[in-house]
């Protein structure tokens, strides 16, 4: 067992006994087998000394128990690492950022506390997963729709606190932005409510976000300043219908006006669902028709393998020969049928300014969907949590040796075609030089308004040498991206310090501010030491290296 730094066995065992008094011995886990359940399934340190592992776990069921655990930890200087469901795979799982920490497992706090049908909101505890919330809403006959990430087994609170995203309207798919009001246990054991929740007797905790005075909610996301025990979210009332349509453009550089037009339509609210953007050459969901989807990619691979890479013209010609556009964007609309048809018509009109643009209406559904329809659609677009994404990486004819997991390299890049093409070129070149799978076309994440996210999945394999090499490569990409002004929006614990170091304006003024806050609100540094690069004073010098 790895103990927390500076804590001897006797002190640790005394703390464990106190935790047992607080929550009952059934809910304190310190055996090796139990603690192994908190390993990060996608850790890039698998079976290496540096792997971040917990010493124990404690699972409270009430806010009062959380308070008591925090007080004990504070008194005994035991680092604790709160998790909701611990399934933030790809960006870190349930393992702590400091080995030897005690995982504060909040899964037992799994109550949906309130659903306000008239004001379209939900108030939940941290252990409520998207599946739980979905089943709860279905069970009470609610007409509210969740926005879910993919996969949907995580917690609403956990995903929001990590600033994760979903797939419906912008107001809802930015999960932290969709929250309204939180309850936090501070490092001294005190409970605080934010926004209108700070007013006893308020009836608008989930209706008005900012309350009065400084709005502090953001300080608790991607940080280690408190333990969130309740959080409210705005939900989308189920729309009457859904429509998706695809616009395809023929030229390589048509990506530039395609994105400019998309930006206009999104920023004016004409298109209100999440756009999917990419090339149909490698993204079957953007290709028109089943016949084309099944077309072999061997010719394309040969083209891409041309020394010096394929020219723009070669790619355009290939796309044309396949009956595809070079680029495509699938727009999605939620609303009354007559309204979304009009929105789609207007969108077509705007995109028609791009010479050669073609259009296809992909799907239209009245909501709610039937069970048969649900089995065929992209479920997340309809707020239906699922685990289908794991089938994508499963072993198959095209993927005979799948990896054991992945970690996302996901820098934010400006929302212009020029910058997307530049990022693709630079990251692809770097990947090839580093011996990683290439990125022949941009993998553009369209989760957020106003910016894109470049997505590159680093494979995790249970092979020490490969993981060491990949970690080094990951760090090189972080540096390369930062040199171009592209910063990560979120990352796994292994790289949080590296990325925080790239947000270095004015001699790391932002990190120094974080550290000032940390020292003030958690002077003993017991809450998630090191999370997002924020180390407590007593570990700062040692851990920041």
């Amino acid at each position, binding site marked *: 067992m790895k103990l927390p730094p500076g804590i001897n066995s006797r002190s640790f065992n005394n703390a464990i006994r106190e935790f047992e008094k607080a929550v009952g011995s059934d809910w304190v*886990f310190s*055996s090796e*087998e*139990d603690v*192994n*359940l908190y390993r990060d*399934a996608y850790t890039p340190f698998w079976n290496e000394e540096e792997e971040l592992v917990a010493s124990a776990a404690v699972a409270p069921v009430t806010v009062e128990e959380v308070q008591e655990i925090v007080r004990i930890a504070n008194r005994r200087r035991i680092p604790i690492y709160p998790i909701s*469901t*611990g*399934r933030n*795979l790809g960006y870190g799982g349930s393992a702590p950022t400091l080995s030897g920490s005690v995982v504060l497992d909040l*899964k037992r706090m799994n109550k949906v506390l309130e659903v306000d049908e008239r004001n379209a909101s939900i108030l939940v505890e941290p252990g409520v997963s998207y*599946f739980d919330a979905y*089943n709860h809403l279905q069970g009470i006959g609610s007409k509210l729709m969740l926005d879910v990430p993919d996969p*949907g*087994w995580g917690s609403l609170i956990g995903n929001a606190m990590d600033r994760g995203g979903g797939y419906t309207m912008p107001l809802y798919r930015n999960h932290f932005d969709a929250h309204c009001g939180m309850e936090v246990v501070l490092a001294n054991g005190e409970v605080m409510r934010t926004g209108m929740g700070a007013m006893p007797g308020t009836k608008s905790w989930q209706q008005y976000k900012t309350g009065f005075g400084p709005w502090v909610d953001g300080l608790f996301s991607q940080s280690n300043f408190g333990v969130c025990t309740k959080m409210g979210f705005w939900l989308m009332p189920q729309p009457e219908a859904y429509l998706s349509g695809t616009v395809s453009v023929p030229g390589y550089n048509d990506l530039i006006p395609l994105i400019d037009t998309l930006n206009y339509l999104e920023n004016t609210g004409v298109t209100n669902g999440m756009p999917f953007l990419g090339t149909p050459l490698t993204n079957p969901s953007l290709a028109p028709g089943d016949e084309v989807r099944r077309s072999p990619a061997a010719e394309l691979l040969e083209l891409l393998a041309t020394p010096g890479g394929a020219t723009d013209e070669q790619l355009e010609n290939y796309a044309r020969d396949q009956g595809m556009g070079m680029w495509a964007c699938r727009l999605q609309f939620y609303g009354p049928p007559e309204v979304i048809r009009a929105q789609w018509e207007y969108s077509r009109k705007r995109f028609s300014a791009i010479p050669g643009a073609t259009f296809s209406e992909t799907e239209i559904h009245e909501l709610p969907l039937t069970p048969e329809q649900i*089995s065929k659609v992209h479920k997340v677009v309809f707020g239906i*949590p*699922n*685990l*289908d994404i*794991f*089938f994508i*990486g*499963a*072993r*198959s*004819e095209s993927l*005979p*040796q*799948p990896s054991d997991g992945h970690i996302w390299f996901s820098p934010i890049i400006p929302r212009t075609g020029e910058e997307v093409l530049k990022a693709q070129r630079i990251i692809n070149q770097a990947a090839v030089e580093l011996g990683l799978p290439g990125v022949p076309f941009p993998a553009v994440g369209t989760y957020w308004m106003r910016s894109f996210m470049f997505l590159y999945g680093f494979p995790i394999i249970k092979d020490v040498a490969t993981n060491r090499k990949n970690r080094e490569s990951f760090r090189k990409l972080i540096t390369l991206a930062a040199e171009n002004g592209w910063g990560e929006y979120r990352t796994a614990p292994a790289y949080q310090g590296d990325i925080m170091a790239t947000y270095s304006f004015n001699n790391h003024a932002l990190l120094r501010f974080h550290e000032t806050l940390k020292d003030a609100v958690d002077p003993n540094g017991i809450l998630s030491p090191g999370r997002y690069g924020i180390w407590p004073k007593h570990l700062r010098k040692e851990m920041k290296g």
Partner: protein
Amino acid sequence: MTNRRAFLKLGVAVAALPLTGHDVRAVIAATGELPETINPTSVIPRQIFIDSRYPESREFARTLMSLGGMAVPEQGDLPQRWYGHLLPILKNQPQAFTGLTGMDSLFCLEMLSRDLHMRPVLMLEPPATASNGAQWGDDSSSVLAGSRWAVESAQFIGTASMRQLQTQRSVKAVHPRPRYQDRQGLVAWVIAPIRQV
């Protein structure tokens, strides 16, 4: 031809704590039948998770059901079967459950069962290789396409004695991964609680 003896050389790994489930003796008492290979001290995981797309999975389930197990209803996808069927049962009475699925499904179930402090205790993935002492057949793809390994997996899971189940603590998959490329890899598995109930 693989036989049960060869199977037991596979280095299967199981937990120190006994699998909870249906005592095979009760089945025998109820049916009056004693299969040739059955061990009277065996336990059978009662819930069997099937992926009906695969004939191996159906064979596996049929074999275990003949020993007293029960198939998890197949309606819906994996989350529905977990949240709608298995989770309530396991919350009420923690117990081992088994299945023969793709690796992706096993990974999902492994992660989900962590909530109940359960973990895989046995994973059997064809084909066996010389390195672990058994050979399933001359052609690994024909092994996968057939159902023999599935039946034998089920027989092992359904008839292993407590002693056999307690021989090792850690999980070991049968590696290296098979070389076939014609379809998803399948694995027979048992997931069980860490703590004895």
